[in-house]
């Protein structure tokens, strides 16, 4: 496990700041909130690009209800990986991710039909909502596997929500952002190098997920 303080300490060594677990940046080139924001952005980006960790959660599905609010899921959702509908006895039906046009082509009167859900689409209005098609004729459960960042980093000793071995690559991502900043620290060659190392982490995670 790596904590945000350990990671910020490593960052401070790399940019010749006083290593104090991210409590302050004495050169005043960066401020603490800014670096923490870079850190959280990079964690989200890493999780989003690699799908390295998934969250499993369920929502009850109601008869004839089409729209489900994803904000009710526990964690800050980045993307859906798998959605299934389980009937009242637990038999599962994987829902295909589709758009409304494909529903028009494949299912007549899908908007007014109910039955066993076969697909879902992401609805943009209201935001963070999915529509299941057709709406369930019986009560059941929606079963989600999704990418999410479960905890936000700070400088208070929070564990980075990633396998510890990938934390050095988050550091490289943050350094890339820090060195891009206009001002005395602006250093595009080193920033590009850091970006390359962050990309290396993403590739290694993908290799680990699928195997060599």
């Amino acid at each position: 496990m790596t904590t945000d303080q350990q990671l910020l300490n490593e960052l401070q060594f790399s940019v010749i700041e006083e290593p104090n677990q991210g409590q302050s940046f004495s050169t005043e080139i960066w401020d603490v909130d800014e670096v923490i924001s870079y850190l959280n952005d990079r964690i989200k980006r890493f999780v989003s690009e690699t799908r390295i960790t998934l969250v499993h959660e369920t929502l009850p599905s109601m008869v004839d209800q089409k729209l489900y609010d994803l904000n009710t899921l526990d964690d800050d959702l980045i993307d859906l990986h798998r959605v299934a509908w389980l009937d009242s006895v637990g038999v599962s039906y994987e829902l295909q991710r589709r758009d409304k046009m494909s529903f028009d082509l494949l299912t007549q009167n899908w908007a007014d039909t109910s039955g066993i859900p076969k697909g879902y689409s992401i609805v943009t209005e209201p935001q963070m909502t999915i529509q299941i098609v057709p709406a369930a004729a019986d009560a059941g459960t929606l079963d989600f596997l999704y990418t999410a960042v479960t905890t936000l980093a700070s400088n208070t000793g929070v564990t980075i929500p990633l396998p510890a071995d990938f934390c050095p690559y988050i550091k490289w991502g943050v350094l890339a952002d820090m060195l891009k900043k206009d001002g005395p620290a602006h250093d595009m060659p080193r920033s590009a190098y850091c970006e390359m190392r962050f990309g290396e982490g993403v590739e290694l995670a993908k290799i680990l997920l699928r195997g060599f």
Partner: protein
Amino acid sequence: MAYQKVTFAELKLLGMNRLGNVAFYTEDEVGIYLNEALRVWNLITWQWHGSVFIPTVASQTFYDVSASVLKTMRVEYNNVPLDLTSLQSLDLGQPGWQGTAAGTPKRWFPVALTQIGIYPTDAIGGNSLRVEGVLTTPVLVNESDYLDLGQWQVQALLDYVHHLATFKQGGEEFKASLQTLKSFMTAAGVQNRKFAETALYKRYMGMDLDELLRPMYRGGPQSDNRSAASE
């Protein structure tokens, strides 16, 4: 290849020596660089293997594997190996699989790096799943913490430490140290030949640029047409 017990204190001393013992670096800093070197080494070579046991829960499909396993490669249920499948195969090949009656698990499937699923679910719970795979990198904290490493591996780690240390200097020193990063990657490619086949490795070695500048000739439709026309 011969391996030897190397303590954290010894590794840090070797690292400091490699950096010329200048006041620009502290021992703590070198310790951090060493731990990063070990992590990158393990991610590339999958050096540390082992297993952990997790108890089953009645009717539970998805399990979070212990934080000490980085990639699951094999799963046993009460000492009986489970067959590997995938979530997609189950969804496509056995619709409704999540509703199958609980019984004795026969298959396992990866969900994410640290999550797996079993099928069918365990009926009783309290049984044992032995999860085997690549372990997370051991972190060196105390001076007496040690690892079994070959001399060439120690050299590769020191190359990486040297490269990391020059990052904060920037400029020509850092640019020159890219060669030591390349040496580290070469050693990792020797340890894991499969890594040496990846695009990532080829990029480090400059082999992708070589292919770009001197593309291999491959007979395509155009060459077929030419030969057909000449006949």
